[in-house]
């Protein structure tokens, strides 16, 4: 008999007033009993609407059925047929707009907690799996992957499993891309990310850090001098956007990228880190995405009073529902329908406040979301000594500007075939945020997997 409870098994979490002062993971994960109980809520629908909602089509009812039986390793095998990073995706996927929003149980009550079950299965495997992965026999072909974020890791993993000799090039000193520099420890522990990377290395993948493709080496050199038969570009969308309003260069104003990189990559929150950070006493975060939530919750943990200003309403927040909920519980103030027009300065060119306008929603724009329009004469100032701009990122032009014949969109995204990732250059594939602009971990991972399959086909067809 299925478990007909209308509610999900609750996720054990650190108490809000405790966790908003530390950087340890917020959600603690299901126990085996909770996982089995939750798995029994699944009705095992024949037409699997949840799988249709998953960007990489994990056979969700099949893995959940194994969890319900206590066969956690079997469940893991089913997930990893489709996903390369289950411990990551179980934590950071926006399940409420993907698999879980299609769940039949969600029509009356809450959907099955698919994300939490995925996380449980991956964590169980990581804690208990003993056998080292089998290193596949080499097929003698070399592929280079640029960037060690979700798309690059997924692409490298799939190719390595097919016997390719893969080298991943990373510009920073640590692999993981946005998983390492962007998403905070309290949401995605860095030990999990490094475990995924260790797993790839065990498959024979080489990871070269400190190599900036477009500067240290070019794609042409990789293909001509280094003997790579194909290249996958997964360089992400790393360039921070600003609003172009007065005062954005004042001291105390950060891009969310800088603020989070100081914290996550450089560990500025630890007393022994030599990288400084100035979260201030009163921080204002501009934006409503996951990155804005991450920045706000990080600033809170460093002792600041934090206000998020967002120009639409709570309903339009692009962040995951859970992150918004957690942020609110942790004492972060939200000012909706609010848009900054100027950052004000004290006599030392430090931030003193943010002048904002009240907004109201009008007809939907091209993105389908209601367009915010300023209410005239509604300006007011919020006091702040730290401002974090979190209004999105664009692809980095370094590779485009050093790779002849690589076509890009006007806004910088690399033009690539949706199914294969093939770019305008033979043998050069691309995927993830470098192609789509800032999106999700799971979409990037899916693009990396598709490109791996296409690269395999391309190299096989040539030989």
């Amino acid at each position, binding site marked *: 008999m299925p478990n007909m409870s209308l509610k999900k098994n609750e996720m054990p979490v650190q108490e809000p007033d405790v966790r908003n002062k530390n950087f340890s993971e917020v959600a603690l994960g299901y126990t085996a009993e909770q996982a089995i109980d939750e798995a029994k809520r699944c009705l095992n629908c024949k037409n699997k609407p949840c799988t249709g909602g998953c960007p990489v089509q994990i056979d969700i009812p099949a893995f959940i059925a194994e969890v319900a039986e206590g066969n956690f390793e079997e469940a893991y095998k089913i997930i990893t047929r489709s996903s390369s990073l289950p411990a990551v995706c179980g934590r950071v996927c926006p399940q409420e707009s993907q698999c879980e929003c299609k769940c039949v149980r969600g029509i009356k009550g809450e959907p099955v907690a698919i994300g939490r079950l995925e996380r449980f299965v991956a964590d169980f495997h990581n804690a208990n799996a003993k056998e080292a992965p089998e290193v596949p026999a080499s097929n003698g072909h070399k592929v280079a992957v640029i960037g060690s974020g979700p798309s690059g890791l997924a692409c490298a993993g799939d190719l390595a499993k097919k016997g390719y000799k893969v080298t991943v090039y990373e*510009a*920073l*000193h640590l692999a993981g891309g946005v998983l390492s*520099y962007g998403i905070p420890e309290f949401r995605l522990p860095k030990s999990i990310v490094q475990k995924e990377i260790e797993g790839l290395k065990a498959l024979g993948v080489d990871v070269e*850090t*400190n*190599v*900036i493709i477009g*500067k*240290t*080496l070019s794609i042409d050199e990789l293909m001509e001098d280094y003997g790579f038969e194909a290249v996958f570009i997964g360089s992400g969308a*790393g*360039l*921070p956007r*600003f609003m*172009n309003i007065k005062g*954005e*260069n*004042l*001291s*105390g104003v*950060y*891009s969310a*990228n*800088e603020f989070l*990189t*100081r914290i996550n*990559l*450089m*560990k500025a929150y630890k007393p*022994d*880190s*030599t*990288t*400084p950070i*100035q979260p201030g006493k009163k921080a204002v975060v501009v934006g409503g995405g996951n990155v804005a939530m991450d920045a706000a919750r990080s600033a809170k943990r460093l002792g600041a009073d934090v206000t998020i200003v967002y120009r639409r309403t709570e309903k339009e927040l692009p962040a995951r529902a859970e992150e918004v909920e957690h942020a609110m519980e942790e004492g972060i103030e939200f000012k909706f329908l609010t848009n900054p027009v100027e950052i004000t300065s004290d006599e*030392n*060119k*430090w931030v003193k406040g943010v002048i904002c306008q009240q907004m109201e929603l009008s007809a939907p724009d091209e993105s389908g979301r209601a367009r915010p329009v300023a209410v005239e004469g509604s300006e007011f100032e919020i006091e702040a000594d730290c401002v974090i701009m979190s209004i999105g990122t664009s692809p*980095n*032009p*370094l590779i485009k500007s050093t790779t002849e014949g690589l076509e890009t969109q006007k806004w910088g995204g690399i033009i690539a075939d949706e199914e294969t990732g093939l770019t305008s250059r033979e043998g050069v594939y691309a995927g993830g945020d470098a192609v789509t602009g800032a999106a999700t971990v799971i979409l990037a991972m899916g693009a990396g997997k598709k490109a791996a399959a296409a690269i395999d086909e391309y190299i096989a067809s040539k030989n």
Partner: protein
Amino acid sequence: MFEILEKKCLNPTVTLMRINAPLVAKKAEPGQFIILRTDENGERIPLTVADYDRENGSVTIIFQVVGATTEKLNHMNEGDCLHDFAGPLGRATHTEGLKKVAVVGGGVGCAIAYPVTKKLHELGCEVHAIAGFRTKDLVILEDEFKAASTKFILMSDDGSCGEKGLVTDALKKLIESGEQYDEVITIGPLIMMKFVCGLTKQYGIKTIASMNPIMIDGTGMCGGCRLSVGGKMKFACVDGPEFDGHEIDFDEIMSRNSMYKPFERKAHEDTCNLFKQEVK
């Protein structure tokens, strides 16, 4: 790992290191920079490339001990390895078509002014080099500058070597005496570059200033190094580090560069104390 092949003290606070980094050496050009970390928990700091040897794969850096990381770096020796060394980053100095240039360096900035001077000299450009230091003990690369320039003027604040006065005094004198430069290139403390640019603006001489702002990744990702140039936001790491000096908002970047001063001072003191304990 990036081995320190050679270490040389140029003056009591300025050190030269030659680092084994073949990939960086292959591509580096004057004006570009690298980012290094001394150890696994170290911060990332940008340093401008002072020289490179493509044949033996080494890159030379010259740094002044100003904070925790440069203090740690200065305690490393030949045979030790830097944890990370990435580059070359930023755009190279534009040298094409220049016939006559004045290079104005100040303090440790002369370490960066030198490779540009050398390159211009090798290209057959007439180079007048002006190097300014606080006092005699701090002078670096004097012989090298002399060998790579058609005219070399040494200035010191206290008159203990060369002529007494500021680099702007020397530059003004040259311009007033009728020297006509295609371009002035200035590298040194922000306040010095601000005054050099102020001077050349009066005479309408194009001036390039090399910026060294606070930076983390060096690839355009963090935006920490942003500054206003001609009223537009630029990232020093990818758009620079060299910009039209007449367009730079120096006051703004001076303020941004001092954002972490109290933290830096404390971190430096803590590091010094650690080294003192080790000595005991």
